[in-house]
């Protein structure tokens, strides 16, 4: 198989990737202090620790601040159109199952214009890692209310304050059929963010991580209460889940042992008010994946594609006398 051949060749050339191998030549152009940088670093750490070949890794995004991430990864990337990151990623995954697919979206990108794709992607449960960068605001366009903006938030589109209660991406995701992995992370505890991302990567199926992320320019003090008061962060632990380093464990004492198969508790945690749960809320490795159900018997290698196309062309070809018979032979 061509894919595995090239993989072997590449491994012969390079067997040890460093973080710098995943950093593109473009320096991140996010605002100073933006939480997106922590997410990018966690992704690059994951790639290094899992030794993912850059040519076998692809990140797909829509539009927004978060969606700039593929530019900063030295891997394949697809900066798509608004709200359409998931269908593009699904197309890539079904055509190239050998690639490691990461999807990055903002809260506006995923939960507003891309909401329909989001729900169906959860239901299709294709094997990919989805990162929702949720800063509660449209930052790229300089502060408009997003579906996750808190009630009463003043913005350019809601000068008198947002009139609706925010949408909770966790409860919505948990409510969709075939959901298989839902987690929540925060950018200001980068070690847990990395661990959650790693668990998500190893999960078979669509792993959905909502990452609460600070926007220092347009939602400056949104998460200050939680950043400054670690007791408001509830860390979810379980046997094969997160492991807090001793120094972090001293800071984040509010911990709960949670069974990730317990949907009822997961929903309760997702709807928690006042505290932010961090960890894996729900994980079920037995949910069927659409890409596995619909996988073809033969892999779509270039040689196979050429053969099939030629067969189809031959059906309508006009041949000189006797030539068709020779081809037929």
């Amino acid at each position, binding site marked *: 198989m061509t894919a595995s051949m090239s993989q072997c060749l590449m491994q012969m050339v390079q067997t040890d990737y460093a973080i710098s191998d995943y950093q593109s030549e473009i320096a991140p152009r996010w605002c100073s*202090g933006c939480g997106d*940088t*922590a997410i990018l670093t966690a992704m690059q750490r994951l790639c290094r620790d899992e030794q993912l070949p850059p040519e076998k890794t692809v990140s797909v995004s829509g539009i927004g601040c978060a969606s700039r991430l593929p530019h900063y990864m030295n891997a394949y990337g697809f900066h798509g159109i608004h709200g359409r990151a998931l269908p593009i990623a699904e197309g890539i995954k079904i055509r190239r199952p050998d690639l490691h697919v990461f999807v990055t979206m903002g809260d506006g990108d995923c939960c507003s214009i891309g909401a329909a794709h989001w729900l169906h992607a959860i239901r299709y449960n294709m094997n990919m890692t989805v990162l929702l960068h949720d800063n509660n605001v449209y930052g790229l366009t300089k502060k408009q209310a997003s579906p996750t903006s808190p009630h009463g938030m003043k913005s350019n589109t809601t000068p008198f304050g947002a009139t609706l209660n925010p949408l909770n991406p966790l409860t919505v995701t948990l409510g969709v059929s075939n959901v298989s992995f839902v987690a929540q992370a925060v950018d200001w505890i980068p070690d847990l963010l990395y661990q959650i991302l790693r668990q998500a990567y190893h999960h078979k199926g669509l792993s959905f991580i909502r990452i609460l992320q600070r926007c220092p320019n347009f939602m400056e003090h949104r998460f200050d209460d939680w950043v400054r008061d670690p007791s408001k962060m509830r860390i979810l632990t379980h046997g094969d889940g997160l492991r807090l380093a001793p120094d*972090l464990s001293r*800071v984040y004492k509010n911990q709960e042992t949670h069974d990730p198969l317990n949907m009822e508790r997961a929903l309760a945690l997702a709807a928690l008010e006042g505290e932010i749960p961090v960890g894996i809320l729900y994980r079920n490795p037995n949910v069927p994946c659409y890409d596995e159900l619909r996988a073809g018997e033969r892999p779509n290698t270039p040689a196979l594609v050429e053969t099939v196309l030629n067969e189809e062309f031959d059906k309508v070809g006009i041949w000189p006398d006797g030539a068709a018979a020779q081809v037929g032979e």
Partner: protein
Amino acid sequence: MQQAQFANSFPSIKDAAPASVSALRPALFARYGALSELRHDYPLVLVDEGQGATLLRPLSRIIDDILKAAAAPGADGEAMRQQVLKLEARIRRAVNGGRAGRLSALWRTAAAEMVKESGEAPFGPLDSNLDAARRHLDLDGEVIGCNAETPARVVTHAWKARQDAKARRFRKRVESLILRLSDILKSDHMKSHEAHGAEALASAMGRDVDGSIDFDALSGVLERARPEDRLPEDRVKRIRHALEALRCQPFFGPGRASQSCPKRPEPYNYTFTSVSDALNAHRARLPDVLEFTKAMTVAELEVDNKYRPELHDPVFARFDESDLTAEQMDLLPSALICLRDGVTVSAEIARAYEALACGLPITVLIQVDDLLGPTAPEPPRNSFGAGTTRLASMAMGLNNAFVFQAASAHLFRMCRALRRGMDYDGPALFCIYSGATPSVRGVAPYVLSAAATEARVFPNFTYDPAAGADLASRFDLSVNPQCEADWPEHVLDYEDREGQGCRERIAFSFADFAICDARYQRFCHAVPQDGWTPAMMPTAEHLAEPDEGNAIESSYVLGIDPENRLFRVVVDAKIVEAALRCNDAWRRLLELAGVNNSHALRLLAAERKAREAAERKAEAEPEPALAPEPAPAVAEAPPVAAEPADEGAADGVPWIETARCTTCNECTQVNSAMFRYNENMQAYIADPDAGTYRQLVEAAEGCQVSIIHPGQPRNPDEPNLAELIERAAPFA
């Protein structure tokens, strides 16, 4: 350099044939080939006095201000933008082509040409847009390009502005004294016999009196009631003498109250092209200065009736130049001496230093046109490549003189310093490089003068004795590119043989500047790409490690030929040595500016050594049997929530809670040598001595998750430590 476009600026290395060195210029100049088409700090408008606080304003900024006010968002505004920008380009080309004039006149001419060329009737859309934009033009003045005349014109303009301000202040004060002294004499006159005479009374009433008043009778009545308290004779004489001196002063043009002066002397000229002339004029005018100053002092005492002959007469009898105060000198005009290095004999420049050292209120401009000097100076001296680059540095040793050094290209950015120098009440030296070096061909003076600053050959700096008592307040080196580096680095984009875009960061060093000069090109050799070898080393890298190998012959800079083809220009050891001298001078300036101060570094090294020795000793000693447990510290300060787990906090060493770092780049942008990322891209303090305590505190304040703890200052001599320690307290 400010630029807006990079048309035809892409160097390439394909098909590079051997080229003559004389045709080459540094590769980084590629962007600035067609300077007239680029928006930059020239032409410069010498703004007329009274039109805002600014002395100089680049045309491009004026146009930007106009467009901000006049061009509305939308298609119409965009049309106006394009038209006004074309007008700006036309004015720039005209000025570079030698046209001179005031901004309003150049605008009118350029606008008329544009309308004529467009074939549009007057008052059409183009004409109306340009006219609407012109109405937002709220300043005017002479427009100058960057050439050999620029330094003298800018400094003379600034000096005139200062003298005009002085003249206004002078006239206000002198005229007030004249009027008040005149009032004293007038009121005394009203008590005199002549003032009460019939004739005087009749003339006071005017011609329209119809004979109903008997002025003889009136005079008789008034004469009987005339008060006898007339002013003493000597006081009247003193006041008359002071009045005459004030009215006939020869320093500034006369004001309204001085119109009655019978002599009406021409004001002295205060601009000179020779120090000797200036000093001779100063000596010749000294009696007038003393006379005027005495008159001023007498007048001020008289208007307040505080003159006591028994006390003040002896003082004024022996009054001489040693009694002149700085305030009195500051009231009078200061002299401007314009010297041109290379044109003015060197003895004049030496004399200028003597005049500056005397503390006379003079402003000296030394315009430098040739920085490097000849390669074989006569008489022979060790100055290869160091012609006249140290004049201002030498003047700083005078200590009481304001010193200003800048290249023409940066005059606008140094405008505030220029004004400060003019306002300084002692001697001031302005050393300006024009960029019009005769032996450099094909490089615009603007680009060459900017390159002199970039290459550290002619750094911009000011030394202002009025700014404070210490060197940190007085010396300012901040208006230089990438100030803390030996050589500034820039990105060079070029195409390789296959036409693929390549990008490289290259340093701009002394050698890059030297290859522009025809006299120095015989010490260079151009090598096309076929001849490039791995043994070749960029000059800046070679300079950083001069002892690394024996590769002096293979030290090179990147150059381009007129067709923008890239070459390596191998430079001679002499140029490398001159570059080392240049770098040495730059480092000395950095030390003066407090960067890598050798005294501080030595103290720190000694402190560190002592501390390490103490730690080793403590480790070697056995622990006491029952050492008391230290009380646990409590982290109560917001926003840090972590308990102090690092031993660094205990002994004042700065530290970071690395595990909580979110890689936001805030601290590494403050100082990338002090803060670095570990293998997980999380920050740690690599070297606390690689920067200042201020940087540590600023990084702590900027950290989004408040995990940087600045500890205690390591350099006790750092300025404003008390304030910094206070700011660091929340992050302890």
